[in-house]
């Protein structure tokens, strides 16, 4: 069976002052249809660049390798064909719901965009938008449809962002740290919502996060990234029970636990020791 999304030696570099800087150094991973995969790693490990590279959103990035969607390489697509992938095949959610919404447009306008640009009639788009917003837990969705982003709280805004991402019914949702900017209670709500949505629509989810705490309850598989390349991937339980790579071990050990002795220093990934072990 071909996986829905398959990254094969994906490399990305950006122009820097001293020539191109390679940010992704050969990412190889896959997401099967209906599967929920978590991409974890510390800040700067290349998680977000991977997400953006799949949709080719960084205009100054030069990409190589292959990004296969249903077996077709999207890196070779024309800009026009790429637009049919964005939104309709793959939806995207960002970390900060404050910055993710256009402040001068109504949330309804923004939710309807993915449909309107694909020729859906306005009335129909509105009906589906209101329905989806209600499904995502926004009360009075019909009335609030014409409100502006500043009239919504952070958690509600993230639901609007999710609505924009999934209204055109993509097969894959890429959620780039969707809960980082939210408080813990709302985090749990949003994750539950994503899980339910994925189940209802048999939609795959690529969850990008640095929070190992939320991965276990959400994802089927985990890909651990470091310095622009995956160091370990596998089924969630295996990774948590028997981490193979020293970096994964360090990452897991550095998650504070509720039953830790509070007098103990928090553990960090020992970079120096790691370098010796990896190289």
């Amino acid at each position, binding site marked *: 069976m071909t996986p829905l999304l398959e990254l094969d030696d994906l490399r990305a570099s950006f122009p820097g002052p001293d020539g191109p800087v390679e940010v992704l150094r050969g990412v190889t991973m896959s997401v099967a249809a209906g599967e929920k995969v978590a991409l974890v790693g510390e800040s700067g490990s290349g998680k977000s660049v991977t997400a953006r590279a799949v949709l080719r959103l960084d205009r100054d990035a030069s990409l190589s390798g292959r990004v296969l969607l249903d077996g077709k390489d999207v890196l070779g697509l024309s800009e026009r064909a790429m637009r*049919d992938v964005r939104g309709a095949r793959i939806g995207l959610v960002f970390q*900060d719901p404050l910055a993710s919404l256009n402040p*001068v447009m109504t949330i309804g306008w923004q939710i309807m*965009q*993915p449909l309107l640009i694909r020729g859906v009639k306005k009335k129909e788009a509105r009906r589906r938008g209101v329905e989806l917003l209600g499904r995502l837990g926004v009360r009075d969705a019909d009335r609030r449809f014409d409100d502006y982003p*500043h009239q919504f709280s952070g958690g509600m805004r993230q639901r609007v962002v999710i609505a924009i991402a999934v209204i055109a019914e993509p097969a894959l949702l890429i959620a780039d740290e969707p809960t980082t900017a939210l408080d813990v209670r709302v985090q749990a709500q949003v994750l*539950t919502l994503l899980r339910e949505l994925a189940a209802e629509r048999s939609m795959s989810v690529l969850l990008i996060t640095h929070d190992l705490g939320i991965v276990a309850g959400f994802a089927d598989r985990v890909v651990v990234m470091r310095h622009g390349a995956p160091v370990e991937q596998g089924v969630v339980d295996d990774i948590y029970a028997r981490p193979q790579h020293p970096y994964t071990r360090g990452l897991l050990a550095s998650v504070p636990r509720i039953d830790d002795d509070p007098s103990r220093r928090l553990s960090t990934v020992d970079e120096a020791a790691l370098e010796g072990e990896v190289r």
Partner: protein
Amino acid sequence: MARFLLRRLVTSVVVLFGLGVVTFLMSQVLPGDPARAAAGRNATAEQVAAVSARLGLDKPVWEQFPAYLGNLLHGDLGTSVFTQRPVLSDIGDALPSSLELVLAAMLINVAIAVPLGVYAAYRRGRAADVAARLIVLFGAGVPVFWLGLMLQLVFADRLGALPLTGQLGFGREVPSITGMTSVDALLSGDPAAFSDAVSHLVLPAVTLAAAFVAVVARTVRSSMISVLDSDYITLARATGASEWRVVIRHGLRNALVPVSTILGMQLGWMLGSTVLVESVFGRRGIGAYAVNAVLQNDLYAVIGTVLVIGVVFVLANIVVDVVQLWLNPRLRQPGGSRASAAPAAEPVEPGVVEGAAT
């Protein structure tokens, strides 16, 4: 929203009063004797004294000013000692022509600067960006009178495409309705006169606009760059929208919020700087009237001109406020302070509804 406008109107009145005080005091300390100017070059001392008494100029300053203010409230800007007509009707003759020029220049300004700024932002750092910057800097760098003369030389003299000076061709007349030749031609249903008036308007308007395009284009460029870098633009792109749609429909409105403020200020500055353009192109206008008034030591005409330009300035800024209300929904929120309503700022959230989720 009505309260917002009312508050702006009250502030405007205060601003105008302050303007009146300052200009009146300035005129008092300026050298020259308006009574002598009014009485004429060869007047005797007695005649000057008589004129001075008639105009109230022999009274002390603190008596002249309240009298002047009282007249202002009745719409009486005083009498020009030079034309012997009420200043208000002098200005009424001169202002529409200048307003026509300024509005046309503003139209050209926006029509050139906004697309240029947006394009430069979109292609930032590329050749097109640099080229746009050079063109714009050239427009801002050349002196107005020189640019006016060059445009006359090329378009009127060499190419013969546009008229050299004036406001209407020989033998053509339009009824005076608003005082703006092109608008009057349109209102009186005379398309030939309208196109004639517009052709007379093009070169002076371009000349006047040239110096202002640079600032607007740079403002549009920088605000557009920060908009294009924002998450919501990336997400708009991620919906599959075309680049045009992303930049224009999703982005432009955000970028225009700071630009509208600049445009409002520029309208006032433009009106204050029409004089060179009007003299190069032989147009009636408030600029020429003001310069004459200053040279003639025509106290009330000077103050009147400054006040009227001030009124236009204030009105333009009220228009800008209304435009911003339309552009930026956060301003429409009752109780939302202007400080918290900057497009990039974190909004205050009074009426936030947190829905129960699962």
